[in-house]
């Protein structure tokens, strides 16, 4: 079971491109002899006393832990301030740690009943007077506890980020045990300066993360990430309905994560707010944190599907293709597992989207995936008809389909309707000399003649429209379409040359 540092850290934006300075280089050159305070020496002595040996903990393990501990406190200038006489011995900490590493399942019921998680390791090992703090009791791993205790102790004079305890986790990943002594000395040598200390901690943090930065994402092996990431799901305890989205930089804390029954209420709230306020920035942010909470708790069921579906629809409505595509990718995978939802509706969107991107290869792949049953639902049928109408240049049928788009298909079709109108105009301008304006209005799916004129005007074709009287003395608006052939052709070519496919996966 991993420790629980805070679920997220608001990370300040990077202002330079320079890589963070590597901490090892500057101080390695001048290792200095250290004078250990007497209490620390005594503590080390006690750790090695034969009566304190615990069965199942080898001396090597104990020593490693001891080094960890000392270097940890040395790094924080706390060797002197800590009450070493009452601090648990390394072997005791190891026992607690192992106990805490029991499967989390046993703890889960407590979480589900909204009771704060029972402190698994509070077996009287903590004689430190600071350990009565409820904050520390929530920690589930002694490594954290050792980390946490002095933090609580020094709570008042430390900046908030120091209370985070990612460091101990990172330390263990970054350095092998044999490095600890060296690091300890190095830390001690510069420990007088608070600034330097802060810088180091930051660097160490970066160092632990450096694997993520230097190796390209495709080569990061999954086994690697398993070793330093929680393999089991988190069980959330947070009860608030709203939560701002932060990108995770560390395993999430249960108290910042909302369990499913809370998330369900959140979804209802968000739906209501969307109807009433339509503040997309807020809604999108909330949905992202909602999705994150689902992910870290490994919730993958019909509720998950509906969250992604609703977010996808809202994103679609606001034309946020980046977010929409993310949801689509997830939905595709979720539908494969038959968790319910509306696969037909979203398959139709996918087809329409591919029509929009004009990517023949993708379209081919998409068609290859569809089975006969997939193609049966009306929405999918419609989308496929749209595709074939455009492929065959049947703009008449295309604009009929546009007016009859099911679900939110019209939002997607809006993205390429202008382009197709220009295409149709280019087409008509080659085949007719003049046409009635009404003919264009009908053929190109405009709501009214005025919309049609507006469209023509906005594309610099207003001079083609003229007032005419026909044989029956009726006045009629006509379009000298043939004269616009060159114009429409170039507009069409321009419209098809740029397709914005941001966020497409």
């Amino acid at each position, binding site marked *: 079971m991993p420790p629980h540092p805070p679920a997220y850290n608001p990370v300040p934006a990077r202002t330079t491109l320079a890589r963070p300075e590597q901490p090892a280089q500057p101080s390695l050159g001048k290792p200095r002899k250290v004078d250990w305070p007497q209490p620390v020496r005594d503590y080390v002595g006690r750790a090695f006393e034969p009566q304190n040996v615990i069965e199942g903990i080898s001396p090597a393990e104990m020593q490693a832990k001891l080094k960890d501990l000392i270097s940890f406190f040395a790094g924080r200038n706390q060797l002197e301030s800590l009450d070493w006489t009452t601090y648990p011995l390394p072997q005791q900490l190891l026992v607690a740690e192992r106990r805490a590493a029991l499967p989390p399942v046993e703890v889960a019921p407590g979480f589900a009943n909204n009771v704060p998680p029972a402190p698994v390791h509070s077996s009287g090992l903590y004689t430190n007077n600071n350990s009565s703090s409820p904050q520390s009791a929530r920690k589930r791993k002694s490594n954290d506890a050792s980390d946490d205790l002095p933090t609580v102790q020094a709570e008042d004079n430390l900046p908030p980020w120091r209370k985070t305890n990612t460091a101990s986790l990172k330390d263990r990943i970054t350095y092998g045990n044999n490095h600890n002594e060296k690091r300890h000395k190095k830390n001690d040598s510069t420990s007088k300066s608070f600034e330097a200390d802060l810088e180091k901690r930051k660097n160490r943090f970066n160092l632990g993360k450096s694997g993520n930065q230097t190796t390209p994402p495709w080569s990061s092996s999954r086994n690697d990430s398993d070793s330093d990431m929680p393999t089991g799901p988190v069980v959330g305890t947070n009860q608030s309905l709203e939560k701002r989205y932060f990108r*995770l930089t560390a395993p999430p804390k249960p108290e910042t994560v909302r369990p499913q029954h809370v998330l369900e209420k959140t979804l209802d709230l968000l739906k209501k707010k969307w109807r009433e306020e339509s503040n997309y920035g807020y809604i999108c942010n909330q949905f992202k944190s909602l999705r994150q909470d*689902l992910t870290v708790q490994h919730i993958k069921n019909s509720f998950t599907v509906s969250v992604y579906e609703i977010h996808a629809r809202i994103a679609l409505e606001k034309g946020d293709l980046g977010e929409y595509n993310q949801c689509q990718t997830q939905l595709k995978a979720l539908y494969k597992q038959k968790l319910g939802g509306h696969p037909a509706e979203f398959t139709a969107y996918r087809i329409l989207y591919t029509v929009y991107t004009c990517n023949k290869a993708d379209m081919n792949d998409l068609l*290859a995936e569809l089975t006969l049953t997939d193609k049966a639902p009306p929405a999918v049928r419609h989308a496929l008809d749209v595709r074939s109408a455009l*492929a*065959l240049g049947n703009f*008449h049928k295309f604009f009929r389909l546009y007016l009859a788009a099911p679900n939110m298909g019209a939002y997607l079709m809006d993205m390429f309707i202008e382009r197709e109108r220009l295409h149709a105009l280019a*087409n*008509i301008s080659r085949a007719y000399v003049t046409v009635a304006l009404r003919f264009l209005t009908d053929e190109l799916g405009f709501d009214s003649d005025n919309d049609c004129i507006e469209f023509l005007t906005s594309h610099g074709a207003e001079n083609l429209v003229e007032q005419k009287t026909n044989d029956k003395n009726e006045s009629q608006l006509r379009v000298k379409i043939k004269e616009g052939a060159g114009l429409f052709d170039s507009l069409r070519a321009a419209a098809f040359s740029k397709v914005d496919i941001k966020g497409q996966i």
Partner: protein
Amino acid sequence: MQAALQPFREAHALENAWAVAQILSPVAPIDDPGRLYDFYRASNEHMVENDVRSVLKYSKQNRHLKNESDAWTDIFVSYWRAIGEILRAEEASNQGRLRDRQAVEVYEAWKAVATNIQKFVSNGMLPSWAVVCMYSAANHLRVLAIKADEQLAQTRNGATFNAGFQDDVVSTTPKSEKLEDAARVFNRMFALCLGDRNPDMNESRKWGVYYMANLQFKTYFKLKAITLSKNVVKAIEAQSDLPLFELYPKAHQVTYKYYVGILAFLQEDYARAETCLQEAFDACFMQAIKNQELILTYLIPCRLITKHAIPSADLLSSFPRLQRIFGPLVACIKRGDLPGFDEALVAGEEEFVKRRIYLTLERGRDIAQRNLLRKVFLAGGYEDLKEGQTEADRIRKSRIPLANFAAALRMGTAGEGSGQILEDDEVECMIANMIYKGLMKGYISREHAMVVVNKKGAFPGTGV
């Protein structure tokens, strides 16, 4: 070991690259099914390195072999290990007890062979002809990678949760990990061939360029990472000092042209695709029926677009498979039978989509439609002869009622109530399309419900 390596020593003495490549194969030759076993039995893990080295190093007849013995020793030792993995996997699979990652182990072992050869080719410890062994090892690597991925896909069930701090539920694990891995090996080998600076063309590795390129194409197509193939083409086109393309083995040429043609085809650059595929087809070995079929699978749709041409009955009849998939479509295009065309397209959809020619063939409907409308035009007959005109300059009627075309286009559709009714406006739209695409010359007059076609060349390229 002495006996097991004897064929190699003989082939090496003759500098027979293909024979050496045959010996370094993970598959036993048909005439000697026990060869792998015999080779593997000739040594054991403990002794193999010394065994191989002593045979190769103290070779009396062949001085070259002696100098290259370190390289060949490494290669044969890795080969021996790979054979071990292969035999174990084969045995396990025969007994139905294949372990979860056994195919992966085979792959990894063979990858060691391939990278060993590449390494020694690269640092010049092997003679130039060893490039052939590199090809062959690489090709086997591709096959083994595909097998390994198949096995991985079976054991990995469904989507997994991502372990990172990502925000979304489902992670995207690569589906063909090992083949991607192999692709990287091929890429290194390709670069090795392409970048050879040996000025002596007889010894240049540049002769391997097209072979490796073809192998990369195959791999990328399988990986559905077709765009990566473009980089290979670009790299070759940017390399100015390659030997003349015509001097390469025909097989390399044909395969390369085929893939370049398909790449152009997929990018809808049909003119270029046609040139490349035509060259590939012309150079293709007469008896390589399957390869010719593959080329034609793309060349036929290509010519449908560029030349509005359909394959002759003769051509189709010599390729039964093509006859089966293209025959009905071609017949309908020729007849101008639109419902038949739609039906044939639906019937063949699965196959067409798989071959990535569906969207191209779909455009053949225009040709079918053109042929149909042309029939209407021909059926319209001639204008009455005016004074002074002779039979020779009779002209066809150039004003054709829209209703005639509509009737033709509606033929074969089920009519009202079937959901297939063709509206009058739609008929106009289809004709407008013909005109726009240049398949028909003329204009539509809505007022008179007429189509006025050009007096000369109403349907370009069809003789009327």
